[in-house]
């Protein structure tokens, strides 16, 4: 008999007044009892809309059934058949737009907490099972993977399972891409990311850090050196700036720089760690996506008193996850909707003292279908801030495309690929994730990595 409660079993969370003083994870996760109770809400329906709602098609009802029966290890193995990073996905996927959006239980009441259950299973496995996965039998083919973010990790995991010899080349000193430099500790503990990556290493995936491809080796050199195929998953890491006066004042950060300092370099532990970060008393974060939420909530935890989100559209158009917006509100982040910065005002010695904004109203829908914000003349006003963090999106880095012959790019600089296979214009070279789509989600990138792994397998089987 399924559990017919219309609501999800709530997940314990750190109290907002406490958590703004630390970088520990906000959501604490289910206990075994909570997980079993929530798993019993799944109706095990035959048409399984949730599975098609998942970009990597996790066999959701099957793993949930195993959770309901208390078979947590089997549940983990079921998820791992299609998802290399369940502890990550269970935490950062926007399930409300994916698997949980189409869950039958969501029609009357709340959908099944699929993400929470996936997270529970992955955490349970990490805490309770010590055995290492079997190293798959290797074939004689080598694949080079550029970048070690979600697209690359998914691609590497799948190809390793098929027996390919995988080498990942990462420019930073630590693998994980946005999972380590972008998403903060309080949403995704770095120890979890490390464990997930270690499990790939245990499967024989080699990771070379400090390797800036395009500089130290070109793609052509990798192919010449004996790699049979290459996957490019280098992401969209190039920060966009507003192009307004005052943007180079001291105290203005791109969200990428701010978050890299805080997350990857652990500047929140300065001076125990050597990398500093500057944060003022009053902080303006410009933008309305997840990156803006992460930056604002990090600023609060670094001791800022007032943190403003300045977003040019209204709440409804915000691309950030609802859960994160709610978390931000609970933590006292102030939302200034329908406002756009016009200039950043500095002191005589070059530090920020304010940000001038203009009020906006929504006009006709633009090409993305969202109503275009239009400035309301004469509504300029100044907000007193001493830090500004720009989080208005990222573009693709051209290090790889500019150093690789025959690689076609799109107008905005992303790599052009075949939609179904991820194949680029260059033979044997595939690409996926943000470098192809522009900044999107972790799970979309993983989906692209999986698809490319399949295509690389086909290519290598038919090409020799």
């Amino acid at each position, binding site marked *: 008999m399924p559990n017919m409660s219309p609501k999800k079993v709530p997940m314990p969370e750190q109290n907002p007044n406490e958590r703004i003083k630390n970088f520990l994870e906000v959501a604490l996760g289910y206990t075994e009892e909570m997980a079993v109770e929530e798993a019993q809400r799944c109706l095990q329906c035959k048409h399984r809309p949730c599975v098609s709602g998942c970009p990597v098609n996790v066999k959701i009802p099957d793993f949930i059934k195993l959770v309901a029966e208390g078979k947590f290890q089997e549940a983990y193995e079921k998820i791992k058949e299609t998802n290399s990073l369940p502890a990550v996905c269970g935490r950062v996927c926007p399930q409300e737009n994916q698997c949980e959006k189409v869950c039958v239980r969501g029609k009357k009441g709340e959908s099944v907490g699929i993400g929470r259950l996936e997270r529970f299973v992955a955490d349970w496995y990490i805490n309770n099972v010590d055995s290492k996965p079997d190293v798959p039998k290797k074939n004689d083919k080598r694949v080079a993977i550029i970048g070690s973010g979600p697209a690359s990790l998914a691609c590497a995991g799948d190809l390793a399972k098929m027996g390919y010899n995988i080498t990942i080349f990462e*420019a*930073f*000193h630590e693998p994980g891409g946005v999972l380590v430099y972008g998403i903060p500790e309080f949403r995704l503990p770095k120890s979890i990311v490390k464990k997930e990556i270690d499990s790939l290493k245990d499967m024989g995936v080699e990771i070379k*850090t*400090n*390797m*800036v491809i395009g*500089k*130290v*080796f070109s793609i052509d050199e990798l192919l010449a050196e004996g790699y049979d195929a290459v996957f490019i998953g280098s992401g969209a*890491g*190039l*920060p966009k*700036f507003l192009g307004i006066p005052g*943007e*180079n004042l*001291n*105290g203005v*950060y*791109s969200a*990428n*720089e701010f978050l*890299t*300092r805080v997350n990857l*370099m*652990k500047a929140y532990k*300065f*001076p*125990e*760690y*050597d*990398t*500093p970060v*500057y944060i003022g008393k009053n902080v303006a974060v410009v933008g309305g996506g997840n990156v803006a939420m992460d930056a604002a909530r990090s600023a609060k935890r670094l001791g800022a008193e007032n943190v403003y989100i300045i977003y040019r559209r209204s709440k409804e158009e915000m691309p950030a996850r609802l859960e994160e917006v709610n978390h931000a509100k609970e933590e006292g982040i102030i939302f200034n909707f329908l406002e756009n910065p016009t200039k950043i005002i500095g002191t005589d*010695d*070059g530090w920020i003292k304010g940000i001038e904004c203009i009020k906006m109203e929504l006009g006709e829908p633009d090409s993305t279908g969202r109503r275009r914000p239009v400035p309301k003349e004469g509504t300029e006003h100044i907000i007193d801030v001493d830090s500004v963090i720009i989080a208005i999106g990222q573009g693709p*880095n051209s*290090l790889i495309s500019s150093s690789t012959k025959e690689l076609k790019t799109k107008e905005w600089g992303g790599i052009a690929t075949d939609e179904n296979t991820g194949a680029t214009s260059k033979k044997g070279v595939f690409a996926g994730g943000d470098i192809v789509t522009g900044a999107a989600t972790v799970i979309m990138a993983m989906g692209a990595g999986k698809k490319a792994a399949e295509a690389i397998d086909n290519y290598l089987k038919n090409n020799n």
Partner: protein
Amino acid sequence: MFKIVNKRILNSQVKLMDIYAPHIAKKAEPGQFIILRINEKGERVPLTIADFDREKGTVTIIFQEVGKTTKELGSLNEGDTILDFAGPLGIPSKLDNVKKAAVIGGGLGTAIAYPQAKKLNFLGAEVHAIIGFRNKELIILEEEMKAVSNKLFVTTDDGSNGTKGFATDILKKLIEEGNEYNLVIAIGPLVMMKAISELTRPYNIKTIVSMNPIMIDGTGMCGGCRVTVGGEIKFACVDGPDFDGHKVDFDEAIRRQSMYKKHEAEVVKKHQCKLGGGSDA
């Protein structure tokens, strides 16, 4: 892990190290840099590639002990290792088709100017090198510079080596004497690069400066190193570090460099406590 295979003390504050990193040595060109991190808790610090040996697989770095990281690096010895060493980063200097060049190094900037002078010399250009230091004690790479230039001028601010004055004074004199340079390369403190650029502007001599802003990743993904050049924002790590000195907004760059002064003082203080006193070693 990257092994220190050679260490040389150039003066009381400046040290040279050859690091074994064959893949970087193979690709490195003058004007490029590396980013290193000494250990797990360390910061990422950019240092210019001062030289490289493709056969031996080594990359030479020269650094001045100014903060915690450089002091810590200076305390390492031959055989010790550095955790992370990434490169070569940035765009190589464009040195082709130069007939006559003046290469100016200010202080530690001499270490960065050296590979440029060496390459220009190798390409057959007439090289006039001017290297300037605060005092005699701080002079570095005099012999090396001499070997790759047609004329070498060594100045000290206090005249302790005999030639009192600034590099700008010498360059001004050389230009006034009728030397027609196609290219001036100025590398050193921002104020010095600014002064050289202002000096050459009225003569319309192409002047290249090497910017050294604060960096984190060095691959173009954070914009921490942004500089305004000709009114546009450029990232020194991917668009530079070489830029047209007549277009760089030096005042902004000077201001941005001071952003972490307080933090730097704090971390140096803590480091010295750990060493057991205010030792400068």
